[in-house]
């Protein structure tokens, strides 16, 4: 459990299920992220400083700049199926907002629906995780969050960017294998049909699940 001397990254997690909020919070904290959890898309937007009511009024800015400054969010991870505003709706609102669109968004869902997955990815989601979310999934967040590093650190990273972008999929596969080996070491490996299914699913799906990395114009240094 490395305690980073760098400033911590802050992740906003959105899920209407209490259990899943606890789980994602623990997963993120284990990975040394600062975490805020909310139980709806509406609350997420409030937290991000977006006032829905004001959006219809052109005189009032849709984002209060001061609020946004105080609460910096480096990544948003949201459940897809939520009452009221779905994760997809939230994703769209974030991408429509000039101040928020650069924040990477990840979607989680308990259902494996390819059309849903591609719709989210097309709308700008960085990743789509199948629930239950695991540590190996959370490890895949790092490269997306690293893109949002503050300006001075970003200039150093600029040169290594291509290397970094190339690495993560590799690393995450290695890390996944390492973790699986560790699990085998500490526990008996159970040939559960579920686990084989999941592995097969992941391998089969990986082109869909992990989108080829393009820069959605995020390299602009502000």
């Amino acid at each position, binding site marked *: 459990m490395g305690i980073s001397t760098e400033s911590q990254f802050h992740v906003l997690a959105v899920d209407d*299920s209490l*259990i899943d909020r606890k789980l994602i919070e*623990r997963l993120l904290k284990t990975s040394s992220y600062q975490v805020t959890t909310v139980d709806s898309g509406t609350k997420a937007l409030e937290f991000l400083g977006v006032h829905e009511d004001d959006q219809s009024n052109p005189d009032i800015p849709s984002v209060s700049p001061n609020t946004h400054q105080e609460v910096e969010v480096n990544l948003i991870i949201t459940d897809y199926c939520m009452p009221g505003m779905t994760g997809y709706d939230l994703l769209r609102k974030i991408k429509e907002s000039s101040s928020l669109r650069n924040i990477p968004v990840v979607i989680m869902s308990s259902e494996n629906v390819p059309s849903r997955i591609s719709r989210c990815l097309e709308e700008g989601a960085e990743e789509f995780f199948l629930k239950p979310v695991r540590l190996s999934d959370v490890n895949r967040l790092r490269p997306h969050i690293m893109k949002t590093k503050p300006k001075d650190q970003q200039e150093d990273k600029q040169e290594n960017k291509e290397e970094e972008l190339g690495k993560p999929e590799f690393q995450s596969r290695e890390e996944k294998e390492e973790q699986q080996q560790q699990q085998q070491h500490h*526990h008996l490996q*159970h040939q*559960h049909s579920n686990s084989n299914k999941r592995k097969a699913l992941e391998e089969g799906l990986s082109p869909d699940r992990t989108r080829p990395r393009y820069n959605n114009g995020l390299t602009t240094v502000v």
Partner: protein
Amino acid sequence: MLVVALPRTALFLQALNIYYFNKGYLDEQFIQLEELEDDDNPNFVEEMVTTFYNNSARLLQNIEQALVSRPIDFTKLDNYMHRFKGSSSSIGATRVKKECTIFTEYCKKANAEGCIRTFLQVKQEHACLRRKLETYFQLGRQAAGPSANAGGQVG
């Protein structure tokens, strides 16, 4: 595989864990939860399980009520079950999840009898798992207590 120096209770705990796996009560998600425990969060698994049982009690009640109302609102049922299944999945409750899937299939076909029948199974698995987990956590507490340092007689 098993560390030799564990006291007897902890060994039994390991065996119980494995038994649960072999019988399909729990899956790798439960292991994942255990791996998320550390010195700062030593009771994470038990907390998750407690939250699950608190939450799910309400959901099961809702489902029960929806099943006795006439006409049955299958959309509502599907909704409740979707949430319940999601939570079950998050703690690794395999058997419970399986029954949920069967229930959902009946629900989508608006098959009331199938739903009612399967719901009994859901409740049964849910209660059964609860008992097993209570035993498991109780043993865990014993293993962590003073007897843990007593040094094990493997047996």
